């Protein structure tokens, strides 16, 4: 079996973000990077499937971006992926989800993967499109938002997380693409022997120009910080006045009170 895991390296979400010079993306200086959290669950699930099948499947991990994404790729290798492809693109942020999906599909086209794992969305752009679009381009079956996964003889039975905590159970046959939700499993901490082995695993580098032939279907017109959090409003005084003020603010600033 050939498995593909698509991962993205994103900034740690605790960082303070500043805009880049053009105002189209965030400035990378002073940011700590890590594997997209959703993709960690994808890598883990792929490795578990490989273990379930006695080690037979071969897992390829692929990522698009500048040189720094190799760190995330190495982590995937240390977790148990066998080989890697780095699609080098220093201006990855200029590609829209359609272009990213096309490049990934172009890579997968001749390689006959049976199963593709990826996170359901990225933590930075969060468009939640790439997984499904790749499936459509490849003509694969697709299920999203996985919180449960089981494989048996060419068929996968998955649980999709629905609003309110309930789950939808669906079955699909390979070849398929699945996108993973947080909590699907517990991503392993790589053991030291595996980290050492990962250093010797193959990472093929390919420029994105070789794979991307599509133009963008959406474009970023601008990026800006949201309206300030008001620096924190302090409400003092009489209880009733406080209540009035608080409720007014809550109605204005949050969406949850419509349920109340």
């Amino acid at each position: 079996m050939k498995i593909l895991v698509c991962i993205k390296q994103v900034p740690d979400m605790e960082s303070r973000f500043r805009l880049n010079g053009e105002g189209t993306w965030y400035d990378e200086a002073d940011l700590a990077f890590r594997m997209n959290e959703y993709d960690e669950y994808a890598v883990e699930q792929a490795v578990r499937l490989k273990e379930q099948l006695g080690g037979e499947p071969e897992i390829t991990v692929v990522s698009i971006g500048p040189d720094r994404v190799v760190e995330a790729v190495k982590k995937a290798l240390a977790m148990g992926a066998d080989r890697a492809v780095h699609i080098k693109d220093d201006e990855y942020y200029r590609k829209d989800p359609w272009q990213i999906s096309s490049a990934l599909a172009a890579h997968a086209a001749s390689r006959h993967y049976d199963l593709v794992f990826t996170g359901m969305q990225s933590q930075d752009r969060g468009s939640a499109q790439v997984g499904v679009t790749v499936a459509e381009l490849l003509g694969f079956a697709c299920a999203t938002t996985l919180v449960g996964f089981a494989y048996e003889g060419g068929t996968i039975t998955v649980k999709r997380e629905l609003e309110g905590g309930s789950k939808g159970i669906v079955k699909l046959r390979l070849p398929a693409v699945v996108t993973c939700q947080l909590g699907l499993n517990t991503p392993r901490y790589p053991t030291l022997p595996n980290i050492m082995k990962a250093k010797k695993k193959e990472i093929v580098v390919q420029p994105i120009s070789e794979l991307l032939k599509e133009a963008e279907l959406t474009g970023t017109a601008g990026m800006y910080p949201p309206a300030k959090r008001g620096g924190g409003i302090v409400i003092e005084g009489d209880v009733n006045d406080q209540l009035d003020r608080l409720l007014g603010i809550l109605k204005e600033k949050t969406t949850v009170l419509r349920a109340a």
Partner: protein
Amino acid sequence: MEATREIYWNVGHAVVLPMYLLTLVALAACCYGFYLRVAVYRQAKAQDRLDNPGKRLSLMARNLFGQLKVLRVSGPGIPHGLFFWGFLTLFIGTLLVMLQADLTQPLFGLVILKGTFYKFYSLVLDLAGVIALVMLFGLTLRRFLVRPEGLRITRDDYLMHLLLTAIILTGFFAEGVRIAATELRGNPGLAEWSPVGLFVAKQFAAQDDASLKQLHTLWWWGHFLMVLGLIASIPWTKFRHLFTTPANYLFTDLRPKGSIAAIDLEEEGVEQFGAEKVADLTWKDVFDSDACTSCKRCQDRCPAFNTEKPLSPMKVVQQIGEVAFGNRDASLTETVGSDALWSCTTCRACQEICPADVEQVNKILEMRRNLVLMQGEFPGEEVMVAVNNVEVNGNPFGMAYASRGDWSDGMELRTLHEDANVDILYFVGCYASFDKRNQEVARSFVKICNAAGVRVGILGKEEKCCGEPVRKLGNEYLYQMTARENVELINGYGVKRIVTTCPHCMNTLGRDYRELGLEADVEHYTVFIDRLIREGTLAVDERRFDYTYHDSCYLGRYQDIVRQPRNILHAAGGRINEMERSEKESFCCGAGGGRILAEEKLGSRINVKRVKMAEATGAPLIVSNCPFCLTMFEDGIKTGDCEGKLQARDLAEIVAQRLQPMPVPSPEGLN
């Protein structure tokens, strides 16, 4: 009449041959027993513990003959010491007899045991014997009647107490009937130099000669055979500590306290990290279980054991021995158990007090290394999250690394990146950088430096976690990664002096980082401030306050720094109410060993126990010098319902509130 004794009186010189033959057999059994044990020690890894032999021998001599470590706990320590000296004296006495009877007299006609010397010899031996007997009796009462909590009684203990008592008693009985048959009639004046023997002799005075001689033969042989029995049993029973414990003094760890072997991550072909089987430990680790006498002093002081966690340092040491000598392929981590292994706070109370120089902590750390590096196991998911945070953002909280220096906004200090021309680098550490409560300590320290005219700089966002908690939790790989980055950075700036407000950072930078090439001097801020005060560079207002002081483990035990903080607090007007467990006997706050990152799920809370100890002194304030301790005490005060009765402060805060402006310009040459 001559003051002397006929050696081999009554038993006759014919006993010499069988005596020596039997002794040889006993010695052979003893050697064989140790030979078998050495084979077991050698299944583990090699380690050089014979470097610097002069120093080692000196330490062994002082600890063995001076019984220095044994005496630290005076209750059972003094009796053991006296028993030891008593028995040693008797042994030397017997050697002198052997020397004369089988060497000097037959070969050179030289008699040593005569005259005044013999009189004193007799007296000293009798006294030694009775002291030994009384002490032994006391220790027997303690073990079998009083039964102190946690002191296990084994088959060996019955054997040892019985055998030793019987040996001393038969010694006195044989002496007594000999005196009754000889000196009592022929040289009563001499008999008075053996007061105990004389006493026994008088009990048998009525017996006739033949009976006395029969009894003497019986007790002489009984005494002799029991001694041989003791010798032969040494390697097979706890008697082995006669050799193994002094040997452990010889093999002691001469490195600075808290030193851990770094794993060479560059080494090719290494498949095993940490200790899973006995073979992964060093021979010394196995030997420690033979040197251990299960005295339970470590267990008594272990903060984990004393809060109902499944960890006992004594048990861990014994378990390693059991596996090594029993089923050497058994899994150590499974035998000891994860819960026990993760409970250790590396406070070193066990090692500090151990009278046999056993090294409990590093065994636990090696097993933790196996759990983390080979099995990816953690004490809890929250620890894995914290470890990942250190990997991504250089701090366990997961706060953006770029904001690490933000606490210093508005203060008079620069990052080294802006201006590397500073007197000291203040290595802030993760807690003082990010935790609101501890940021107060950082700010206080900077204020103190400003007042003393010390130019202080920080690394700001370039600083990474020193790596200590992850290292103590077994993650050697991550530790080395973050440590090397810090070393390269600090060396790159040409830093000469580092001061830190965290004892963990201080130990890590000052000891662990040396192996990785850190060049600068590293000092804890209490030593630094103490010197500033004594030099007159820093003036502190004496404003009276009552307090109790907590000696943090990594400062008190690891670094032996107990005086300087007290000096400072005294200068600041403090009146101290010491806790019962202070200085080297201080009780851990519970956060060491990386446990600050973990949740305390088992047993009762260590920090609450310590806070209660502070409360019991009646002082309204507990002062500490470590960010972990401060965090633990603030938490413990709330959980332990001491709010309003007790407050927690760091020493830096106390000093910062009492700074006097300097009347003279700050002196140069602080470097």
